[in-house]
């Protein structure tokens, strides 16, 4: 009985095994012959940060679509199309780590595009290091990401401490003696907190008076904060947060009869939601952007910054902000590094290490501006080239107003309707 059974099992095993070999062989070889570059995107497609997460996806996707129109990335005279794989981080670091492992193991991606938030990035970058898969992050802006000196992760957007810091100084120069005091508030969550701290640093460097520095929890009722700001009456109010907080902030301020002379916020002022939802109330608000459509940059794939903006508008129905631009430019970095490397995909572990070296040596001009990664210091592997531009909303349009090299309009001070 037992002998019979095992013989039958053996037979069945052999048949199944050879069947699998016959069927499997072409699959294996097809995978070998299918010369595509497999790109994984780990970002927050759901959860608290899904708004920004979807923006990053748009940016990465637009690049992939454009490069595939040309037949793919050109390496040693031949073009290799790009195939995108997505992993939803659910706005949670642990899910981001799960997603990264899945993309690397199951989808066998050659390269990763990074998450929207810094928290997820911090959980994903050890995994990219472990499997030696280079990662290009088009969004994460927390300086903490670069402090840990990630060997395989590269950031397109200068850390927020650099940008908010500089923007206040630029603003102070522009206003001269008209503005003397500043109050800084921010949401108590990583990105916004660091933005606020950057503002504070800028205020101290520029020699202005800091009237208030305060953090508040996400979802807090803003009336107490605004009442306090009204009482302080500073010349400039600086807010760290995302666009939904700014919308609530402006609404709450209006309903308490308060319009500061200058209101500067960071990421989000340039987003379509901010202008659409606030209408006239948005006018006069200042924002910081490392990129705007009016900047005089260009590259071969997207053309000028404004060409890119129109392309993105045609594709998604809204004008891109710097997150989308940074993400699209991530693809350009990959393109350039792969070309210099000159090795056909799929890339094995050794080649991926070489590719990482190649990315480290990046020094290119794109529609997004110049890109080169720091090789040492607190901003290791962060692209610190872009210069922040101070923008102002005028008649529902985003207009760069400072520094003078990028300005397209006058800085309006005090802002319309200021109390």
């Amino acid at each position, binding site marked *: 009985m037992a002998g019979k059974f095992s013989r039958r099992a053996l037979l069945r095993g052999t048949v199944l095994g050879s069947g699998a070999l016959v069927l499997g062989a072409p699959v294996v070889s097809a995978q070998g012959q299918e010369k595509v570059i497999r790109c994984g995107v780990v970002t927050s497609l759901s959860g608290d940060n899904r708004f920004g997460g979807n923006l990053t996806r748009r940016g990465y996707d637009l690049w992939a679509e454009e490069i595939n129109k040309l037949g793919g990335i050109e390496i040693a005279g031949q073009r290799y199309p790009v195939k995108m794989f997505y992993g939803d981080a659910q706005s949670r670091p642990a899910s981001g780590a799960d997603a990264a492992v899945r993309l690397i193991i199951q989808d066998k991606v050659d390269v990763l595009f990074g998450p929207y938030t810094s928290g997820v990035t911090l959980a994903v970058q050890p995994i990219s290091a472990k499997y030696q898969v280079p990662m290009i992050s088009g969004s994460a802006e927390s300086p903490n990401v670069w402090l840990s000196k990630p060997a395989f992760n590269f950031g397109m957007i200068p850390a927020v401490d650099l940008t908010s810091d500089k923007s206040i100084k630029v603003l102070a120069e522009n206003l001269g003696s008209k503005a003397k005091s500043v109050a800084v508030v921010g949401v108590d969550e990583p990105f916004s907190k660091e933005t606020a701290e950057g503002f504070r640093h800028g205020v101290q460097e520029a020699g202005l008076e800091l009237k208030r520095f305060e953090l*508040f*929890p996400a979802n807090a009722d803003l009336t107490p904060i605004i*009442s306090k700001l*009204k009482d302080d009456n500073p010349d400039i109010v600086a807010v760290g947060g995302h666009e*939904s907080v700014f919308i609530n902030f402006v609404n709450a301020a209006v309903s308490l009869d308060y319009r500061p002379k200058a209101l500067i916020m960071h990421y989000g002022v340039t987003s379509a939601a901010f202008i659409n939802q606030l209408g006239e109330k948005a006018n006069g608000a200042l924002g910081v952007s490392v990129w705007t459509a009016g900047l005089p940059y260009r590259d071969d794939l997207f053309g000028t910054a404004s060409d890119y903006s129109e392309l993105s508008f045609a594709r998604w129905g809204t004008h891109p902000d710097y997150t989308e631009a940074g993400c699209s430019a991530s693809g350009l970095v990959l393109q350039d590094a792969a070309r210099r490397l000159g090795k056909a995909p799929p890339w094995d572990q050794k080649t991926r290490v070489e590719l990482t070296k190649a990315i480290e040596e990046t020094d290119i001009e794109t529609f997004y501006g110049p890109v080169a990664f720091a090789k040492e210091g607190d901003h290791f592997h962060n692209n610190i080239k872009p210069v922040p531009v101070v923008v102002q909303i005028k008649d529902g349009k985003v207009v760069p107003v400072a520094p003078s090299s990028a300005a397209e309009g006058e800085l309006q001070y005090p802002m319309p309707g200021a109390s």
Partner: protein
Amino acid sequence: MDLFLQTIMNGVLIGGILICLTIGFQLTFGVLHVIDFAVGGWAMLGGYAAYWLVALAGIDPFISIFLVFVLFALIGRAVGPLIYHVRTSRYARPDLMALAFTFGLFLLMRGGALWLWSYNSRNVESVFSGEFLTVGPVTIPVLRLSAFLMALLISLGVFLLLYRTRFGMAVRAVAQNRDHAGLMGVDVKRVSAYVYGLYTGITASAGVLIATIYSVNPSVGVRYTLFAFFVAVLAGLGSVGGVLIAGLALGLMESVVSTYVGTRYSLLVVFGVLFLVLLIAPKGVLGRGI
């Protein structure tokens, strides 16, 4: 001094919002003995209803609030019997099962809203948006003032209903003793379902005002539920009258702590006080049942 007066006013007005949110919840607890996790969910859905009525039909929230009340009262009237069924079932622990049921309902609302209307916050514009009154040194946003007035009106309405009508008599009878009320010929199941409908109607209308004051997105419900629980516990679960005082107390606490201690600490203080209140006076500082 001006800041102090403004702080008090801010607190009172936040209190008004909290009262709107909690009155219906207390009514259901008093009658059905159910802790409804979905309270924030009903408010969130009310906000969305107002948003769509503005966006699609151009109806101002101050008019649509009545439509929302009727619509959600009907929905609640339909859902009520299910909750009654779970609460009075022969399960091992019907109270916990009812809690779990409303928890599932809440997740369904939150997830459904995310799925249907996706992630972004939506602003609900009204003719009163951005309007304010100035009284001496104090600025009063009209929207918040109307929420406060609505809180007073609802409270008054609920009191009249409970103490001046036959239906109210039945409700109180059920609240005191379900079995005895049944023996006296009250259709307990029907009364419970109507109370649940009343509660969902009130809470969704409160959600309309809250959405015009802040904005609405699928995740706001969690915080509303938490605050409703807080006010309800402080008032004494099931006490409708205590809500007025407890809501104002919480509003003032949030405002004063935010202004004079630091906004960062406001939630820490709020939850700390809630925890301590429960430990020291679990039946609430103020109240008794309906």
